[in-house]
């Protein structure tokens, strides 16, 4: 049954191998729950109910146990997001130096609202808390890359880059 669900989630074979390996890191299976969720989110972008049930079956838990974990961590997403994840810091230093304006610029550029997938499918913009780069505020992370001193103009530049890459792909 677990494998039937995994096929509908379309986990890559590499992810499946990795998951089986991850489980061996822990003395009790259930301890692997976070790592499995990370692996799945990395692969398919979000954690669906199917994924929750699959992980539960895999670790001999009940789905509610996994669901509790998923809802506790804001970094786990229960819905798909855009091709890129733009995380704008809104904690004190960044907020004082214009983080909110940076966010608004991104929203305008991609004609979208925070938490949504932009109409072109390219981005999802979100506020996050302190990215530990307060000295170069305001900061933004696009997927795994940190961008410093992102004022309105730099936000526009980053947006143009993303759009250019998108049209090149088309």
């Amino acid at each position: 049954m677990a494998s039937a669900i995994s096929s509908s989630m379309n986990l890559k074979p590499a992810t499946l191998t990795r998951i089986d390996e991850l489980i061996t890191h822990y003395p009790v299976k259930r301890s692997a729950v976070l790592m499995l969720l990370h692996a799945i989110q990395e692969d398919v972008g979000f954690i669906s109910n199917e994924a929750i049930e699959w992980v539960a079956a895999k670790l001999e838990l009940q789905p509610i146990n996994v669901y509790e974990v998923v809802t506790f961590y804001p970094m786990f997403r229960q819905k798909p997001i855009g091709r890129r994840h733009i995380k704008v810091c809104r904690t004190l230093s960044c907020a004082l130096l214009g983080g909110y304006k940076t966010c608004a610029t991104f929203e305008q550029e991609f004609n979208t609202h925070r938490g949504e997938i932009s109409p072109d499918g390219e981005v999802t913009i979100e506020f996050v808390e302190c990215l530990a780069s307060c000295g170069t505020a305001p900061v933004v992370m696009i997927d795994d890359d940190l961008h410093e001193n992102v004022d309105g103009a730099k936000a526009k530049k980053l947006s143009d880059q993303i759009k250019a890459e998108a049209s090149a792909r088309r």
Partner: protein
Amino acid sequence: MIAPPKPDLVTVNIDGKEIAVPKGTNAIEAARLVGVDVPYYCYHPKLTIVGNCRMCLIEIGMPAVDPATKAPIMDPATGKQKINWIPRPQIGCATNASPGLHIRTQTPQIKDCREGVMEFLLVNHPLDCPICDQAGECKLQEQSTGYGRGYSRYIEQKNVKPKRTQLGPRVMLDDERCILCSRCIRFSKEIAKDDVLGFIDRGSYSTLTCYPGKKLENNYSLNTVDICPVGALTSTDFRFKMRVWFLKQTNSIDTESSVGANTVVWSREGQIYRITPRQNDGVNDTWMADSGRELYKQVKADTRLVSTTLDGRAAPLDAALKAAADLLAAGSVAVVGSGRSSVEEQFLTKKLAAALKAPAYLVSRVGEGDQLLISADKNPNIRGALVTGLIATLPAAKLAELAAHIDAGRIKTVVSVGEDLAVAGLTAAQLAKVAVVYLGTHANATSAAARVVIPTLTVFEKGGTFVNQQFRLQKFAKAVPGPAGATDDLAVLAKLAKVAATDLASVWTLLAAEVPALGTMSFANIPDTGLLLDATPFAGLPFVEGESLHYQPAAKVAATA
């Protein structure tokens, strides 16, 4: 039987009082024993301890000893051994008694702690007691009165959470009232073995929920309502029907199987509103099945028999009894007793059969057990029939022998004490061949075919005893009066059997005199938690029950011994 080993006793000191308690007893229970109340929410004696409400904070200390020599350090001021108090409060639910443990529950620090915990619990509580079903039996209400600060400093907006989540067919959740004690979660996981509840979005918006697509619908779901310390979980059946303080509580027994879970019947002005479990650590702990809580509905069922009939027409009780007596006097009678009757009724049924020299039968009802509080034997009192001698072997589901007797013309009259003979295997033709005297509570094929029908009382309308699967004699009391037109089974049976005893006390005088197993007892002396009878005379019988809470089938016991 081997006596259990004496538990290790340790002496602890609670607010200056010394008491010996079994080792490992937690501070809440130990304090209870000396009459000290330690308030709590998340702790439940039958569930694991999680320590998440912090209401049970206490101060603890241990007698001081010199680290090097282990010699007691004395306090010169008092001349007693000095106590090293831990400066920070500890939770009582997870503090287990160890030798010399000292506990303080009445210090200023503990008063502050309780006020603080109460204040936080009330921060997001909707305070909708006037419309809350739990009012009157709410721990939050009681403990804010007892231990709260008495006024609120909170002026901010309260959290808004789902007010009406249907967790399952019988349980409704108000998330705003939930104090996140997790008792319901632990019950579902540990006792009902149906792990569907959990907290999501932990933090300021922690919300109790059922896993999407699943329901809290196991047959024990209503126990979560019982143990929820606040009004977050309510019973869809009882919700908004009645204030609990108006209700009268009567001790009763769940009749749905031979487990005999102890119950309380809650009624007002002759109407029953709900049934809840009553703690009996030898039988059902603090639990009961949902199915047993609905049984009160039979009291007001449309099919309830409420008038005595003779040949299908309403008749006065005297006339019906006279007609029945005439039928019995004519001979060729068989008596069908019931595993649902009380011990007292079965005893009179036996006397009736003996007086008529009639064969006596019983009907078995075997179904599925759930290994918790419902056994495979759906008769609550088969063992009562064995103890009173109404039967000597276990009954069958069908009355094959009686059917043969009727076919052969050897039986002309059948007295049935509440058993539907059609269900018990008699054909319509066989029923038509005999005159039936039916004593029962509800209409069925047998009452329809009977010459004489005498309506009797349900378990809620009379007192008596049952003997459960453990051979535990348990009593139940009358919660509500029976409907007009129904007569106490005991009175009817006594009349037919021509016995002078028509009430419980007088039947018990006879029982004690004639049934050796009950020789030394009277109804009044049976404790509320029941009395274990000697089961050895019946040890060889092939009882149908499997293992359940606090019960091991004899074969299994023998195998493991």
